């Protein structure tokens, strides 16, 4: 790498256009929001910048704290489920044959490239009252009843007439949808961490008499900890800020923070408050990223090899 002064002209020619774009169409819009978060709404469309903290104070009201808390709980549940599901999948991928490994990885990433909106829509068709799950259950119930009535055990004896389950428009549906869209986020870092793992540690542990469970919890998990932490953070961040999934799959009480931000800017038309909420969400994101950076640095220092 060379000092920029050595060819200042070329440097500026290459440096200026992207910097201009980033500053004008990204940094300035964000700064605008930041300023708005310290402003007051003085009329229907009038906003005055008077450097007050009222918007942030309002964000601490129980209603909004509750929504923040709900977002954290849903994102945590999503991350936990993803971790539990992704770990065995990552292990299976890492320990399969090299050519098989590429295919499995590709299969896990492929849904990633499908539009988020479309994947969420696909889940609606699965979960709705007339969806695949309810129809499947109904088929099972009806046939079981038919079989029972054939052998003379009467009608509807198992669960009575079939009533579809309410699977959509509740918090469970949102977590289900979030797990569905964020699973690849968790598999990839776990795969990367397990791939780097020195297998002789596992062999040593098994040779010395530890079972697979013990080897997993005392050897694999501690060694893969940076990867686990990384996976947790990069699953948690998008889940926490997700807008589409709670919007399409959630009910009236499953609003997450992004939905409240959107409604402040669209329906409620209270930009300063929406701006304050946006920045709180962004600070939460930065905090999660900082945690990840610290953990990654630890990995660099404490490498076993």
């Amino acid at each position: 790498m060379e000092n920029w002064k050595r060819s200042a002209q070329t440097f500026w020619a290459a440096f200026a256009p992207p910097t201009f774009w980033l500053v004008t169409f990204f940094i300035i819009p964000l700064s605008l929001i930041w300023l708005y978060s310290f402003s007051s709404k003085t009329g229907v469309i009038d906003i005055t910048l008077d450097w007050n903290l009222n918007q942030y104070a309002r964000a601490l009201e129980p209603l909004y704290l509750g929504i923040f808390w709900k977002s954290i709980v849903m994102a945590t549940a999503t991350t936990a489920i993803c971790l539990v599901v992704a770990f065995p999948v990552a292990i299976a991928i890492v320990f399969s044959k090299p050519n098989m490994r590429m295919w499995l990885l590709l299969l896990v990433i492929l849904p990633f490239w499908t539009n988020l909106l479309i994947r969420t829509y696909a889940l609606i068709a699965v979960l709705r009252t007339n969806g695949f799950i309810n129809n499947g259950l109904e088929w099972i119930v009806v046939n079981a009843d038919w079989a029972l009535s054939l052998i003379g055990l009467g009608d509807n004896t198992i669960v009575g007439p079939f009533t579809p389950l309410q699977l959509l428009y509740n918090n469970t549906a949102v977590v289900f949808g979030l797990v569905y869209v964020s699973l690849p986020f968790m598999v990839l870092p776990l795969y990367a961490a397990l791939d780097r793992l020195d297998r002789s540690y596992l062999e040593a542990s098994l040779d010395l008499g530890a079972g697979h469970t013990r080897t997993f919890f005392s050897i694999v998990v501690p060694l893969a900890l940076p990867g686990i932490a990384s996976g947790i953070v990069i699953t948690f961040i998008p889940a926490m800020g997700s807008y589409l999934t709670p919007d399409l799959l959630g009910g009236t009480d499953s609003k997450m923070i992004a939905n409240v931000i959107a409604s402040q800017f669209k329906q409620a038309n209270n930009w300063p408050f929406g701006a304050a909420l946006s920045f709180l969400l962004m600070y939460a994101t930065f905090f999660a990223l900082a945690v990840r950076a610290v953990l990654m640095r630890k990995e660099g220092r404490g490498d076993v090899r």
Partner: protein
Amino acid sequence: MSIFSRNPDPIGPLDYARRFWLRAIVAVTLFFLYAPIVGLIVFSFNDSRRNIVWRGFTTDYYVKLFNNEALMLAFGNSLTIALFTTLFSTVLGALTAYVLWRYRFPGKAIYEGGMALPIVIPEICMGVAMMVFFARIGWPSGMPWPLNLSAITIAHIAFSFPFAAIVIRARLESFNRELAECARDLGANEYRVFRDIVVPHMKPGLIAGALLAFTLSLDDFVITFFTSGPDTVTFPVKIYSMVRFSVTPEVNAASTVLILLTLVVTAFALRMQNRNNMIGNAAH
């Protein structure tokens, strides 16, 4: 063969991939990931309005799709935005990658952090920021096509080009700096070195970055949703309004078209990147 005979190829202690329960978990997970999408695609061919039970194969909904003017307009808008986004993002991404790869300059770490911001901040924050920005500076609305798409395109470029920069920079890592020195010694000026030595090496990265920007732009919903107006509807925004309304075979057909388009572009990008790595490895 007796079931009591020994397995000729026993499962080793570390052959986790051959254990039944791990295979079962992988199979269930893949089913969970794919069944909804496959169901969506299959039911786009279903000959029933209610879209619940299979009633026979039809391509009617694709015909309806292509006759649906609003949807086709949205599709055209999406492609136009994606094309301009690709063009600008590739150029800006290449310049960013070049600067970060070649130079040391004060505040470089902060600069790199700033470039990563559009990638890491929640989409909703960027969406509302762009919405407020365009409203505040009084960006003209109601311009003739395709100028009415400019706000969306600008927002798309802002979040796409840092992604393109990452892909292109990865490609530049395999560049032998001595080649550039050599060309300079032989009398080429900065511009010629860039054009004749650096850019040809960057090419697979440029193509991969361009395809990435294209899919990012084509797929984006949240940021577009906040920057689009009633006369600037994109394909995902249109699908969203249809989804809110109900589950219909038309939505399935429209979704299938978008899935196919993204898959083709991404498969192409992946091949480009693979070749990228192969060339990179061969060079070492």
